[in-house]
């Protein structure tokens, strides 16, 4: 491995996750009810093969070239997102959305996956060329715009889950480039206001807290006023935005707050997933033996809810193992980002961390009802070509960053 120049920690964690993921995907196909999940693990193996090739190619490509190509890639990804809005088709769980790009009925992939990486690259390029980190909200306008464009296009599909990933990427990279946490909180404040809008008391409390925070942190007066106004507006906008949401999104959000009330419909997935995980107990029902999965009570057991299979069949112990592997992955990525030879590659690495972490937290969280059900895949576990190849690309970039830093002598630190 050393000869190949691959980061050993990252490689072993990823290998562990891939094997774990493939085993669970195999188990997800072992049901009493015949479904397409049956042979998914074999198809996934083919994707893994393709992913390794793709990762190797990415590993071979220079970061300088990537840096140069970032704006072009970004624009290309935006163009695809626009195209998909016009000619896109739905698929699987998200049949009602326009997320797939298809030619002649053959689905080629989901442009949003590519857009995530392109946005990371372009934002990294922009941030790394700035003289100083964003120090005011005004400095945040361009980064927000870079992420905001694909965010809005994805929201228009509508694909709330992926849109959230863009926000994760934005905050991770702004943090890594050195923006003050207080500033990030102010930036995030409209979102918090939006989420609390439905509960008047909580929203009122938040507005008071925000006022105190603004007094303490003393941003520019205009910015402070703007932030406060936006927060106030969000309380109103939230109601209007709610009406704008498609019924299935509304149902998902409401059922997240109270799944039992919607047990028959949108709350069904949340409840059945929790039942599967809870019935697994500490040690699980045994590999491939989970009755909830076997009897098809567990929805989307090979894609969005694959982590519930871990919970049902391997129990808390299995969940802990999987989460520790992911934690190890993120530690490895942080280490790579910290040791990167230049700001651009460091930001790319940390952006990938933001991207993967959002996926993991959102996906795992929704299986246990601490996050709303948004239907985004779990890296290395969920079946799906587009996403697997995106992860492969991301890993190729990470290995490259690690390799570059080793060449420049950083690796020994």
């Amino acid at each position: 491995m050393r000869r190949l120049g691959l980061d050993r920690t990252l490689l072993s964690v990823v290998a562990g996750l891939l094997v774990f993921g493939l085993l669970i995907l195999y188990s997800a196909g072992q049901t009493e009810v015949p479904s397409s999940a049956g042979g998914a693990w074999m198809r996934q193996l083919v994707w893994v093969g393709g992913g390794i090739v793709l990762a190797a190619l990415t590993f071979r490509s220079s970061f300088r070239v990537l840096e140069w190509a970032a704006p072009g890639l970004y624009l290309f990804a935006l163009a695809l997102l626009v195209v998909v809005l016009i000619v896109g088709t739905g698929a699987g769980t998200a049949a009602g959305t326009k997320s797939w790009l298809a030619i002649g009925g053959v689905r080629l992939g989901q442009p949003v996956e590519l857009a995530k990486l392109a946005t990371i690259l372009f934002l990294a390029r922009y941030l790394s060329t700035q003289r100083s980190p964003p120090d005011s909200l005004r400095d945040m306008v361009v980064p927000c715009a870079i992420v905001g464009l694909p965010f809005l296009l994805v929201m228009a599909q509508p694909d709330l889950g992926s849109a959230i990933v863009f926000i994760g990427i934005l905050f991770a990279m702004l943090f890594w480039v050195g923006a003050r946490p207080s500033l990030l909180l102010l930036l995030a404040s409209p979102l918090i206001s939006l989420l609390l809008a439905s509960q008047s008391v909580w929203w009122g409390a938040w507005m008071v807290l925000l006022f105190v925070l603004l007094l303490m942190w003393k941003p520019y007066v205009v910015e402070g006023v703007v932030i406060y106004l936006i927060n106030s507006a969000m309380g109103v906008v939230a109601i209007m935005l709610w009406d704008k949401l498609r019924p299935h999104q509304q149902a998902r959000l409401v059922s997240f707050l109270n799944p039992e009330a919607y047990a028959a419909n949108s709350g069904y997935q949340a409840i059945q997933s929790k039942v599967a995980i809870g019935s697994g107990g500490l040690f699980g029902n045994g590999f491939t033996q989970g009755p909830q999965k076997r009897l098809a009570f567990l929805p989307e057991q090979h894609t969005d809810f694959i982590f519930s299979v871990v919970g049902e069949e391997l129990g808390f112990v299995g969940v802990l193992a999987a989460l520790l592997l992911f934690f190890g992955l993120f530690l490895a990525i942080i280490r790579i980002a910290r040791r990167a030879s230049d700001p651009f590659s460091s930001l790319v690495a940390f952006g990938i961390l933001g991207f993967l972490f959002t996926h993991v937290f959102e996906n795992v969280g929704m299986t246990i009802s601490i996050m709303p059900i948004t239907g985004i895949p779990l890296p290395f576990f969920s079946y799906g070509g587009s996403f697997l190849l995106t992860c492969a690309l991301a890993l190729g970039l990470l290995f490259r960053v690690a390799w570059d830093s080793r060449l420049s002598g950083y690796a020994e630190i």
Partner: protein
Amino acid sequence: MSTMQSYRLRDRAAQAIGVLSLAFLILIGAFFRVQALESDRFRSRAEQNRLRPVPLPAPRGQILDRNGLTIAENVPGFAVKLLAGSRDSLRAVLARVSAYVPMDSAAIEGVVQRWAQAPYEPAAVISNATFEAVARLEEHRYSLPGLVIQSEPRRVYPAGKAIGHLIGYVSEVSAAELNRQRFPGAGMGTIVGKDGLELEYDSILRGSNGIRYIEVNARHRMVREEGAAPPIPPIAGEPIHTTLDLSLQLYVDSMWTADVVYNGSLVAVNPLGEILAFYSAPSFDPNEFVGGISQTRWREYQTDPNKPLLNRVLRGRYPPASPYKLATAAMALRRGVVNPDSYMPEPCRGGMQFGSRFFRCWKPEGHGYQNLVGAVATSCDVYFYQLGLRLGVPALLEEGHLLGFGEPTGIDLPHEVSSSLPGSTAWYDRQYGPRGWSNAVALNLAIGQGENDQTLLNMVRFYQGLAGNGTLIAPHLVQPRAGAVPRDLGLTADQLILLRRAMSAVVESGTAAASGGRDIRMAGKTGTAQNPHGEDHGWFIGYAPAEDPKIVVGAFFEFGLHGSTVAPYVARVIRRYLESIDPSLRGVNIRLEVQADSAPAPLTIVPDSGPPVP
């Protein structure tokens, strides 16, 4: 860029690790709560997901007659049930089922309603499917998700319509009955007795259902039928032994079907109050009702002008007419207003003047001077008018109640109506005003007319008391109902013998002469209930042998014109029974003659038509 220096990155990396750790601790905490702390709850929830309880119906107890013959038994049958996840999917599957087994829309609605009561249990679709239907459904099982077919005991009444009114029938418990807790221990889908003996003794007969568990998948398709979870076996119901003489009952049914053109009823009891035969005509076949009768058949029964579903024994109330004269005689003896040998002052000249009205006797020529025995035998109305006047209205009512004429008999069958007799003169005061009625009421009551409606069963109970030892015992098929205490007629042995003698004089001329040189004497009383709406109704209540009664039979023919129409059939039933308990009487030829007794037209109460009540 200045902020990307490695020492700053190290700080930020530490912060990032802190944030990540917090996030992972939240996740791990959430999983720990669900998987370690609340695991039991979710485990049972998962079991509930995959295991569906299917009731295993308990075999119902047999119902046997007094000789151990079967009245009700079980045969193996097939029940078709459906598991469904939603109303829509249930309807979809039912639509496919109806392609193989015809079902009307009402039946489909019924299934949907049953399903809505207990969505996690299989809803009964066909409770007694034929083998062909089951085979067709099995063949298409793949297109019928949720199909459950199981062998279940099915109730059969071999005697069919001969025992319809007696046995009732069984069917699935209704939602309303469940709400009212009508059947303790019954759950959705339990088969319970709906009428007759099946209802009365349901708690003994029913037993308790078992449960087996089948494993289903999320589409409610059965995955595993056996061994998903240990089953709870059903507990069979207890048999009941009735007092019915099934062969006599069948004889009554065949006699009625072959020879009797009237609607009516017949009850036979022994002097202990044990019911030997119990028949209401026309009857129905209880087997049609088992597991639910079809809508069209039900409508046919409902709209039939002959009212086959009406239990005339328990629910038909008619003026008791002449058979009630024995009651009036008993009252007079109890009160001591008449001496057995004394003659009434006024002879019968075909009627009697009372106040401004002439009360006729049924025999225009008149009966002359009469004593009690003669008056009973000739059914002389004039004698009883005078007896009624001697007793007076208050005594007629009070004594009537003491002799059990204002109450239900307490038979161990559901839905008995109470015989009705005004409780006191206050009733007349309310009805007609305190001065609006006269002692003419006494005349009517004394001959079994007026405000007096009796069920056949209650009249038979009174004659059972006369034929027995002077105690009224609730007629019963198994045992008298709790609370139905024997009622002493309050007659001395001499008085009882007198009344029996009077009664046997009624049919004295028609004494059955046994061919073997043995006589069977029969005692009884005919009656004709005036019917203002059409032909008169006929009564006959008799017992035999007169000197040592073994059987009391009462019968009532609607529009039967006269009691003498009824008497021969009663005699046939009596003979049949006596033959069966004493084979040496086989071939006895019973000839029966009864006088052409006819009750006088009922008199309307005309204000001040007679002397006012003292």
